[in-house]
């Protein structure tokens, strides 16, 4: 009896590695090099290789197009049972899925693996702007929304626009009165903020860190469930300021829907190892990313709920019909 128990335990401990060994693993970044998805692929798979979780380094492929849609369609229709493939994802993926931008594909057409870090939305103004707190900013915003241009790095309907609309809604503004100006990436939007062409920058914490440290911008609120470490330690969460808005830019992966069960479990295990490693904690810190770890079934539920929320929200805000 005891032997049987040991056998079962051993099988449980080593089962993962006995059943599946990755062969020529690949990570698809559904956009060009230098972006967020590219970072997710390269950073996470490098840690996996350094921890010897994969025998060879990952091949990272930048499969661009359609805001991630080209990669999504490719994985669903051509690589549906690939055991050695993971694909980088973020709320940019779920927003587009919710708005039906990936042609006929839905969030159910892939299997969601997990998230290993997160960036958080911020509300920033220029350092010499008259508003010192969220309350002051919102008061001015409500008094005359046409005078406050809000800029972000995504197109209308994208992440930065959605977080602005959520804030506006929490502040009691009509979605149509909110003046959103899209830029090609957060960097350009910050340049416009510093130039005085827009009044609010709605981006992510990692994007404004350098400016915050240099004192050129003032961050009025962080759209996170709790405060972030320095240099954001003194920045209140939006909830603290009275506007219950969170924007979690999780960074994670999906995998082909029919990936064999042992491979899926194997990749879940590697994410656990990455999360536990010191090197990952260091990379997160260097890139101004917060801790956020959620995998497997729990993550699947999270995604289902998020896509559903985004869909309702997009309808409510008039972004889709």
């Amino acid at each position: 009896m005891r032997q049987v128990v040991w056998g079962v335990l051993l099988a449980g401990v080593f089962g993962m590695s006995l059943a599946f060994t990755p062969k020529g693993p690949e990570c698809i970044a559904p956009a060009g090099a230098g972006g967020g998805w590219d970072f997710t692929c390269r950073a996470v798979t490098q840690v996996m290789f350094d921890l010897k979780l994969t025998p060879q380094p990952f091949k990272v492929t930048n499969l661009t197009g359609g805001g991630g849609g080209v990669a999504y369609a490719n994985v669903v229709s051509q690589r549906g049972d690939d055991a050695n493939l993971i694909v980088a994802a973020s709320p940019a993926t779920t927003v587009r899925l919710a708005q039906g931008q990936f042609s006929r594909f839905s969030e159910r057409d892939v299997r969601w693996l997990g998230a290993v870090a997160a960036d958080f939305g911020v509300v920033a103004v220029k350092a010499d702007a008259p508003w010192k707190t969220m309350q002051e900013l919102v008061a001015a915003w409500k008094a005359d929304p046409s005078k406050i241009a809000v800029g972000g790095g995504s197109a209308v309907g994208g992440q930065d626009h959605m977080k602005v609309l959520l804030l506006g809604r929490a502040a009691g503004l009509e979605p149509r009165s909110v003046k959103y100006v899209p830029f090609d990436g957060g960097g350009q939007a910050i340049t416009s903020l510093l130039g005085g062409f827009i009044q609010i920058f709605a981006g992510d914490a990692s994007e404004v860190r350098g400016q915050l440290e240099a004192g050129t911008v003032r961050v009025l609120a962080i759209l996170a469930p709790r405060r972030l470490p320095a240099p954001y330690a003194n920045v209140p969460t939006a909830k603290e300021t009275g506007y219950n808005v969170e924007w979690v830019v999780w960074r994670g992966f999906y995998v082909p829907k029919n990936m064999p069960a042992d491979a899926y479990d194997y990749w879940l295990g590697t994410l656990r190892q990455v999360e536990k490693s010191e090197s990952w904690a260091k990379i997160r810190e260097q890139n101004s990313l917060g801790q956020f770890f959620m995998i497997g079934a729990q993550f699947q539920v999270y995604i289902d709920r998020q896509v559903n929320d985004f869909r309702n929200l997009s309808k409510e805000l008039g972004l889709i019909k």
Partner: protein
Amino acid sequence: MDIVHALTNGFGVALQPINLLLVFLGCLVGTLIGVLPGIGPISGVALLVPLTFALKLPPESAIILLAGIYYGAMYGGSTTSILLNIPGETSSVVTTLDGNQMAKQGRAGPALAVAAWGSFIAGTLSVVGLMLLGPLLAKWAIRFGPAEYFALMIFGFSTLSALAGKNMAKALISTLLGLMLATVGQDPQSGISRYTFGLLQLEDGIDFLVVAIGLFAVSEVLVLLEEKTPNAVRTRVGRIYLSLKEFVFSLSSILRGSVLGFLIGVLPGAGASIASFVSYTLEKQLHGARGSFGQGDIRGVAAPESANNAAAGGAMIPLLTLGLPGSGTTAIMLGALVSLGVTPGPQMFQQHPAVVWGLIASMYVGNAMLLMLNLPLVGLFVRLLSVPRWFLLPSVLAVSFIGVYAVNNNPFDLLLMTIFGLMGYLMRKFDFPLAPVLLGLVLGYLMEINLRRAMAISNGDVSFLFSSPIAIGLWLLAGLSLLAPAILSRFVKREALGDDEI
């Protein structure tokens, strides 16, 4: 901080053997990337970012390597423009106009050499500018808002007449085609897809590179295939060095191209392509009827090649002084810096002097290296002209297709490129100029998005477009540039520099 002291420390970093090796490697790889059509500086830098991580390079070494690739590619971009009428980079499109004519007249050597000298002078001047004027210019650059960019794009379009060739109506049709292509994809201002026909691949718009390589490289190969003597040597190789007379003749164009390219390069989002277009036009308008532009004027090579190199230096300014990327390539470099633990921002000069000054010093070293690397290569490259057609043409096609595929891994791009190749072939047959298509494509998107941003910010008030001194200045320049050819041609006589005069 004392600049001399800081720069001395910078050279201390740049002259370490490992960093010298990396500058050399960056310049070499950059030159190759520049020479190969299809792979541009953006993709070149992007492909090598993982290497800097894998080698566990310190941040200053990584940025030295990546910057070397960036300005190295600007050097190499002219080579195939001149020799084969195929731009190696988008910023070398205008170089084809006079560069290829020179090659056909047996003056490929001087054309390549003037591109190398121009790049060297422009590169070095832009580093001096970066060092001395960086913070000042950065303040100027952030005052460029949507209205100013819109006016800048109008100024860009006013240069059209210089690219037009003989028939203005055909040039306008070409431009319109470019403008139409610029509207394909998701409209950022409304989130609505335009002209995508339900294809996900068109959602992000049409890649400039795909159009450029298709229109120029693929169609050039098709045109050459038609010629009856398949194995004939296309042109004589001629002299491979630059005469002193030619150098002196081009020097003022090089200097003007450097200054113009540098200033445009500093502006986030404008970039090397616009710099090369504008500087070419400036030369053509200054010399107008006195030059032989379009028929192999050496200044038509010197100016844009200087401008695109100076722009690469200028683009470093917003990156280093503000921590904001000024171009696609510097955006990738910024991402790499962040991952290496350097937070780019206004404090980089204080927090990471080794990175900033090491990079600046390495750019002096790199520019000198590139000149030494490229001048001897001229002799090698001109022999490309004597490579038999049956080998050269398939190779050019193969490299173009591989280059485009390597960037996006998207087979759809190859299809699109082929379609643009056929379109380019037809356009050549019916004598439509190709360069205006690219002008329309690159300026059209920026013009539209900035006009709409301006209108959104000003709540639809058109006077906002004329509300700043910079914007008004640019509108005046645009007007001047439209009228200049007519005015200048009254005062000056024709004066051309032909081969026999040298």
